């Protein structure tokens, strides 16, 4: 049943798969983000309470969702790498981590720039904000652990274990606004019974989420290509690829 997957354990096939997928992710991300930003910034109505400052939502929410989404993908890759000893999965962990860290940083910075006019403070040690900051440290921890070892095999295993252990932070981030009394507002779009957001704002938000998801995919693919090539740079297939131009 899973036999069709086996060839992708080979570095060359995985590299080719990245090349095949990359254009789709790139086109979807650029189109959705351009449309989503113009729609969100210029055409979505202003909020009745927060006026135009709420427009930060169109990058804050997508980046926050994707900071957790990227972490889940990284952790799944880490499990695959540890259980089946696939080097490509290990390289995927290292490829995704900086992209996830960038999403987390964007979520934190845009959150601060939204918090200042609305709460009167750039930063508060609120449960949601603090757990998101820990997520950033987890990403940086995975990356530095991988690079701290001279032996890449040992470094990869250590980074994968940290990535898996760090998953415990994801439900803490998600439920932080329910478990603790936070300044951060509760869920907006994941309350399926009564969505707390008007369709005129929901649509550009969903388009931006799609765009950010495709962007995380595209950037991870670019980085995974680099990691595969770096690991295999003495192999004949890389030399053929490079000399072909």
């Amino acid at each position, binding site marked *: 049943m899973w036999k069709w997957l086996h060839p992708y354990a080979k570095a060359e096939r995985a590299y080719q798969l990245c090349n095949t997928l990359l254009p789709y992710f790139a086109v979807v991300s650029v189109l959705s983000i351009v449309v989503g930003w113009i729609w969100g*910034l210029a055409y979505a109505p*202003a909020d009745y309470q927060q006026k135009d400052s709420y427009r930060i939502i169109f990058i804050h929410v997508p980046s926050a969702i994707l900071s957790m989404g990227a972490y889940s993908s990284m952790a799944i890759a880490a499990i695959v790498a540890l259980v089946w000893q696939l080097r490509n999965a290990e390289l995927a962990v290292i490829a995704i981590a900086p992209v996830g860290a960038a999403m987390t940083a*964007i979520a934190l910075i845009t959150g601060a720039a939204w918090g*200042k006019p609305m709460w009167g403070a750039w930063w508060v040690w609120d449960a949601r904000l603090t757990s998101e900051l820990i997520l950033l440290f987890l990403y940086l921890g995975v990356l530095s652990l991988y690079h701290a070892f001279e032996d890449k095999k040992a470094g990869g295993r250590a980074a994968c274990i940290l990535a898996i252990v760090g998953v415990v932070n994801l439900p803490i981030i998600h439920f932080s606004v329910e478990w603790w009394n936070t300044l951060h507002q509760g869920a907006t779009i994941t309350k399926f019974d009564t969505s707390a957001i008007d369709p005129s704002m929901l649509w550009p938000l969903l388009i931006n989420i799609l765009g950010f998801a495709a962007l995380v995919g595209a*950037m991870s693919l670019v980085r995974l290509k680099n990691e595969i090539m770096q690991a295999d740079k003495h192999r004949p297939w890389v030399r053929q690829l*490079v*000399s072909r131009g």
Partner: protein
Amino acid sequence: MQFESFSDFIAMGGYGFYVWLSFGSCLAIILGLLFVSLYEGKRLKEEVKMQMSREERIKKAKEAEAQA
């Protein structure tokens, strides 16, 4: 369109600084990481190319030495 003029759009109803700070830093982080990643790929290919031409030179020098 929610805004009367371009300067209205930039002002964002008085929240311009915070809105453009968010969008600007978001764009800077994304483009920065993308640039670094693409540059890294380019540098890797050049490294492999250089290694190949180096090996080629060594091979030629050895051949010349054997003939002499």
